[in-house]
Every structure is written in C-alpha cells, then in structure tokens.
C-alpha cells in the first residue's frame, strides 16, 4: 500500500478489544478506540490504569492476550517490523546509552528507522530544538526539558504516521511544557497523528482533539474534552467532585474516583 491508496478516512490506529495481562494480572481489559489522521488523542487515567500497557502493546513490546491492533491498516502481530516503522515512540522513561553523545544517539535512531540525515541537517534540526550547543553532551547531562525535546525529535525523525508519547510533559516546568505542546501541534501540522498519555487535564484540554478516560484497564469515557464536560456535568459523581463550574478534572475524578493509586 502506498500513501495514495489509503483512504483519508482510514484510521491510523485501530485498537479493538485489546487485552493485556502480566501473568495472571490483567492490566488492560478490552479497550477499543480509533485514531484518525491528523488527530491528537489523549489517553487519561490514574496511575496503573493501563496507559503504558496499552502503548506497549501497540509498540510491539508485549504481546496482547487478545484483541486486534492495526497501525495504518497493518496488523501489529502479523507485521511487527512494518508497524513499528510507521510509529514514532517516546517511552515513559526515555533512556539512551550513557556513553553516547546526543548527536550519536540521533544518528543511531535515524539509522534504525531508515531516515537519512547528513551532518548539516542533523545540526540544523538540533539547533531548532535548542540543542545546537549540546551536540557532544550525554543524554543524562541534559535538563528534563531538553531530554524530552530530544526524545520527541528522535520519535519523529523518520516522519512517522503516528506518534506514541507516554507522559511527554511529566516533570517539566510550565515553559518547557508549553514549548512541547507547540512542538506536538507543529507535528500534527506536518500531517502526523499523535496518541499521548497525560495526568494533566489542562494539557488534555489544551492540545487534545479527543480524549479517552481509562481506569482499571477499561474504557470509561471517550469524547472531545468539551464533549465530556457536556456529557457528564450533571452526573452526581461529577457534581460532587466539582468546586464551582464543572471542569475536565471534575469529570475525571468523578468517573475514576478520588482514592489515591500508586
């Protein structure tokens, strides 16, 4: 299939009745959702809800117990490498070989994804994300914001159809967070779709076209941020959680409960 053959309406990602288990423990219990071309989709859920497990299954890092995963129409379990080639991945904890400088890390991943980058292109690109002066530095020596920018750049180096970003703004200061939001929106502008996970309702509201709330491995709600508020603003659980006007966070707390998860 070439790009021309793909109907514009075909989802870039189809998740159908996905179940993920670690031994006897079920982490994802039958989740279904689609991601449309050019969409920024947020996966929200408390700690342990199954967000990372869902992403890991899509990324081909673990084999689902059951269900179907199609990336760009390709079955992930039948065509793992082809599916991986279409994905840009930023794991929850980004880590690269401590002995490599960032220029070498980018070269490694460009090579792994078949993206040809000459020296000038690489320098320009790193300059654009504010890492022009850090070419020889090691990943661990970068600030949190720089690390996330680099990880996002590496995820998008091969111009993937879909980016999977696991808590990309966790632990960032407001400036870095905004900058990353802009970068994510710019990537969408270049025609990419984005699936991100977050704990920040502000973030979900600011950048996501649609959000899914999951809890205990199950899908609790799926709509646009405004649509979710509209749908649940009179739900008693949500009303009880609200302090004044109902926010997305009130909906989230109302639907997933207020007890603390670890």
């Amino acid at each position: 299939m070439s790009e021309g053959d793909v109907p514009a309406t075909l989802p870039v990602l189809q998740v159908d009745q996905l179940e993920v288990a670690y031994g006897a423990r079920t982490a994802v219990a039958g989740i279904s959702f689609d991601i449309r071309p050019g969409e920024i989709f947020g996966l929200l859920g408390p700690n342990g809800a199954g967000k990372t497990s869902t992403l890991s299954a899509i990324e081909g890092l673990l084999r689902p117990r059951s269900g179907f995963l199609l990336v760009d129409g390709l079955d992930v379990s039948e065509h793992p490498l082809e599916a991986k080639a279409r994905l840009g991945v930023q794991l929850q904890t980004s880590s690269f070989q401590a002995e490599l400088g960032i220029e070498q890390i980018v070269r490694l991943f460009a090579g792994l994804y078949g993206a040809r980058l000459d020296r000038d292109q690489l320098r320009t690109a790193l300059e654009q994300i504010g890492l022009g002066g850090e070419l020889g530095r090691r990943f661990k020596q970068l600030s949190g914001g720089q690390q996330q920018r680099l990880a996002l750049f590496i995820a998008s180096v091969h111009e993937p159809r879909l980016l999977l970003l696991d808590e990309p703004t966790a632990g960032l200061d407001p400036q870095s967070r905004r900058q990353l939001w802009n970068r994510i929106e710019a990537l969408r502008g270049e025609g990419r779709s984005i699936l991100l996970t977050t704990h920040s309702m502000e973030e979900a509201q600011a950048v996501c076209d649609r959000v899914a709330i999951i809890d205990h491995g199950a899908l609790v709600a799926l709509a646009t941020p405004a649509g979710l508020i509209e749908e649940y603003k009179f739900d008693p659980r949500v009303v009880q959680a609200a302090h004044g006007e109902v926010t997305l966070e009130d909906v989230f707390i109302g639907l997933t409960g207020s007890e603390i998860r670890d």
Partner: protein
Amino acid sequence: MKSVTDTGTVRPPLNLALRALLRADATVLMRSKISATLSILLPVVILVATTFGKSQHRLGGTTLTIGLALVIGLLTSSMLGFTLAIAGDRDTGVLQRLHAAPVPTWAIMGSRMGVQVAANLVGSIIVVVVGVILHGLALDAGQVLLVLGAALLGGVTFLSIGQAVVGLVKSSAAVLAVSRVIFIVLILLGLVGGTGLLGDTLKSIAEWTPVGALMTLFADILNRAGWSAQDGWALLACVAWTVVCAGIGIRWFRWESR
C-alpha cells in the same frame, strides 16, 4: 530529514540499521573505559607477574601462563563486561527503546556481540604480543592464527554464557553477583581443577568446563603439540556450551527488567 521509508515501503533497510547499531555499539564499548582496561590490564598483569621468580613453573610453564592470560581477558570482557552492559541497559530502559525500533531483535543483540567479538580479537592480539615479548616464546604465523581462532571461539562461548545469565537473571545487581560467582567458579574449576590439585574427579570434570577446554586448546597450540583427540573433545565442549547457553539465553531473554 528525508525518510527512505515513506509510508508505502515495507520496512527500513536492514543494512542502514545494522551500520547504525554497529557504530553505536563500537562507540559504547570504546568508551567503557573500566571494562576495556580491565580486560587488557588483568591479563597483562598476569603476564608481567609471572616473569618474576619461578612462579611460571608452579603454574605449568610459559604456555600455560599465556593461555591463562588469554582466558582471563576473554572472561572479563565477554562474561562480565557484556552481561553488565546488557543488564544495565535493560534496567534503565535503553533496551526497551531499541526494541521498539523496526529492526529484528537478532540485529540488536548480534551487533553487540559482533562488536564484542572484534574487541576480543584485538585484546587477544595484545595479550599474545605482550606474552611473546615478555616470555620469549617463539610462535609461527600458523600458531598465531590458531591461537586467535581459539580465542574467537572462547570469546563466543563466554558471550553465550553471559547471554544465559542475562536471560535467567533480571536485575543488574543480581546479574553482577551471579556473573562474578560464575567467573570465579569457571576459573577455579578450569585452572586449579585442571592441575589435578583437587583430585582426579575434578580434573576430569575440569577438562569439560569452558575454561578447562579452552586452556587445553591454547596449551596444545602454543606447545605445537599437534592435533589430538583431546583437542577434538575440547573443541566439542566449547561448541556444546555455546549452543546450550545461547539457547537458554535467547529462550528466556526479557527486554525489560520489570
């Protein structure tokens, strides 16, 4: 940023990926100063120490000393260095990120092993050269080639033992502990057991251990002993250890330590 894998084509070219992996792994290995230094320094210390006094005779002569130095170098880099690097990268999530890339898993591991094997060769050449100079041993070209061949095989055997360790043990702290113990047991069995110091039973067991078998090969090559049935068995032992340990290491390997 030009992608050769536009959404139409199937997967990125393997040669590009392999080249990127090999380059990165070689850089990492060259920058891992402690492990590189140890795997060269330790054998050289043995070679230097044995030039003093009569210790050579106690250890069984020059050829045995050089054989031992080679074995220690290979064990240090292939068993300790390799396993610790893998276990560390698994703990920190480096391996997981590589695993998410569109390359076959054998390429990720194969590249690391290939680079390690090349480093073993360089290390062994250094040890042989230093050994020849310090101990005045005359080797012909054929012997040198055979020694390097045996070193290659031994390195691969130790790598597969290391792979079995990281396959069966998850956390890097535990991997460090386990591979240290195996290191000591292998040296003791192969070396001390082989001298007959610990009795005949242990001596015959020792000949079948990876270190014992490799020492037999080195000794016979360096002594120009000619090919014997014992060398055949030693060769077979190395290959068998390699196959079994690699099988275990591949079958139970996990990409993350959680």
